């Protein structure tokens, strides 16, 4: 397969522009004098579409230097290439999804501990270190924000029930 990354990106961005331009037609016009609310976003989206088109043409015309090879399209290779980043994404989504339930203190400790262990390894000594690090660092940050800066961080249902 001989597809250029830039071609795929340009087509995706053009699709995005199409959807947004279509959505810009739904922007309400309250009938006030002066510049309409849809004017500026439409200009930006039109310019963006033109630039994406230029990128698409350039990617098709220029010599293949940025092609997707079989390694890039192999799912296993892609997974290993982005393994750590994917772990961070996943852990962060979990942290956010359970934030209302666990709160910033417990959720934060679990997030840091989980991420440290997933990235650093599962040996017993490391797990103990990760546990200590997560409790100390989140504990300090939570205390600074709660008591020092008077920020009311999400308490979480668990602590609320207790």
């Amino acid at each position, binding site marked *: 397969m001989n597809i250029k990354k830039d071609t795929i990106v340009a087509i995706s961005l053009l699709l995005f522009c199409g959807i947004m331009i279509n959505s810009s037609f739904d*922007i309400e016009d309250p009938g006030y004098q002066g510049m309409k609310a849809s004017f500026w*976003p439409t200009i930006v989206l039109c310019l963006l579409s033109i*630039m994406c088109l230029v*990128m698409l043409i350039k990617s098709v015309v220029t010599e293949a230097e940025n092609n997707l090879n079989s390694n890039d399209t192999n799912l296993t290779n892609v997974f290993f290439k982005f393994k750590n*980043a994917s772990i961070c994404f996943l852990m962060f989504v979990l942290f*956010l999804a359970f934030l209302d339930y666990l709160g910033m203190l417990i959720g934060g400790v679990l997030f840091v501990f989980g991420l440290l262990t997933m990235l650093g390894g599962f040996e017993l000594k490391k797990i103990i270190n990760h546990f200590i690090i997560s409790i100390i660092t*989140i504990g300090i940050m939570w205390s600074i*924000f709660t008591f*020092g800066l008077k920020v009311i961080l999400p308490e979480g249902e668990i602590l609320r029930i207790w």
Partner: protein
Amino acid sequence: MIDVILQAFASIVLDPVTLGLMFIGTLAGILAGAIPGFTIAMGVILTLPFTFGMTAVQGLATMLGVFVGGFSGGLMSCMLTGIPGTPSSVATTFDGFPLVRSGRPGLALGLGLWSSFFGGMISAVILVALAPQLAFLGLEFGPWDYFSLIIFALTITVSLSGGNITKGLIAGLLGLFAATVGEDEINGVARFTFGFDEFKQGFAFLPVLIGLFAFSQLLTDVEDDKRAKSPLMSQSGAIVKVEHRQAILIILKRWVNLFRSSFIGIFTGILPAAGGSISNILAYDQAKKASPNRSNFGKGEYDGVIAPEAANNATAGGALIMMMALGIPGDIVTAVMLGALMIHNIIPGPTFIQDEPLLAYGVFIAFFVAHFFMVGLQAFSLRIFLLVTKIPMYVLASVILAYCAIGVFALHNVVFDIWVMFFFGVIGYFMKKLGFPLAPMILGVVLGKLAELNLARATGISDDMILFISRPWSLFFLLMAIISVIFPFYQDAKKDSLFSKLYVPISMIVLSLPLFLMGSPVRMIVAIILVLTGGYFLYKRISSLNPI
């Protein structure tokens, strides 16, 4: 005037809390600058959430401590380990590391430290002198001129951020688009909300900025499994005694290099997006060209250490000039500072120095004071630096990711902001992977609303779009924008090509046109100088093309 300066001085120097915050900020900046993979911008971004509970002066003073400290932190790692801590200290490695290797680590550190100090002091003096004058000039600007200035700021960011100009422009436009989501400020009409109430407020620019810059950087830092698990530095150097007296004497003897490099730094700082990473290399190159000991460069030449370090600290003053005078951030750090001011309901612009003199002069004084902290803390921070470098990157990244989440939540006390940070973090990560520069997108997000507001004001006053090219300042900025878009092609063009030979002289002649239109005697003189110089270069270069 004097009483304002004295009050501002008292609010910084006589307030132990502010001094304490600056102490911590400078120390944190030195460490952030010293650790490879961390940048000064990241240090300032991570400081931001702590400043929410402070006064505007305290918050900015702390950030300035991080900013100034960061520049000198970079020199510590590049000299002791040969690895630049930040892009702004790359050129320092060329002669700093060989000087250390030749058995003079104390002198090398002293030269770097005191060059940074003197460079910063020179730029601080220029900042105090130039920012009010530039702000005075900014009072002439109408909405047409401001809109064109923002367009110029974006195009120059694209052309200086390196790489593909098409991708840079796309990134900038994506940033401008992101700023349009939510209720528009003129009509209060919801845009691109897709039925989600949370989107009505739009994306607060600080979560976007933290996501695009810090979050995506952390993901990149832990990408390589092996590198993420090993300590930050395999060789972390040893504690050395800085030779202060000898270093000062050597620098003062080379005052021409010091001043030249500082002015290069200031000028580079004033240009949007052209930060310390460019100025240190430019200054090194000029120092090498001007030196009688050119062959010694790369082997531990003193001038090779003085030039980049004086330039990169001077860049900070240059970047502050634009932010203070016109409200246009010169780089990511000043964009964050702009955000910090907005949190305190202060909008920098041409009237900022007049409206908020205490705060404005407080910033000037904090910039001075931060340099003294930087010198004082260097020896102490060296010990902490040696400890920090033993920590693996994955530990730092995990803790900082959690800290980003807490900090972003503290901004408006809404969880949606953390989702925004995450979303833009993912976008930033993949944009980096696909070769899109992030600086234009960040500037686009920061300046998007301002651009739209000024466009609305301009069209509200008059339907005549010709005003964008008939008003001298607006024409000047639009011409600068066109010249900056063409600049990357000039860089890539062959040295002996017609385009390469004509670019600079034609640009000079073209830029003289709006200056002539401005009418004031000084600007007319500048315009005549530009025409004459451009004409002379044009004649010389055309003659060289057609030798008789």
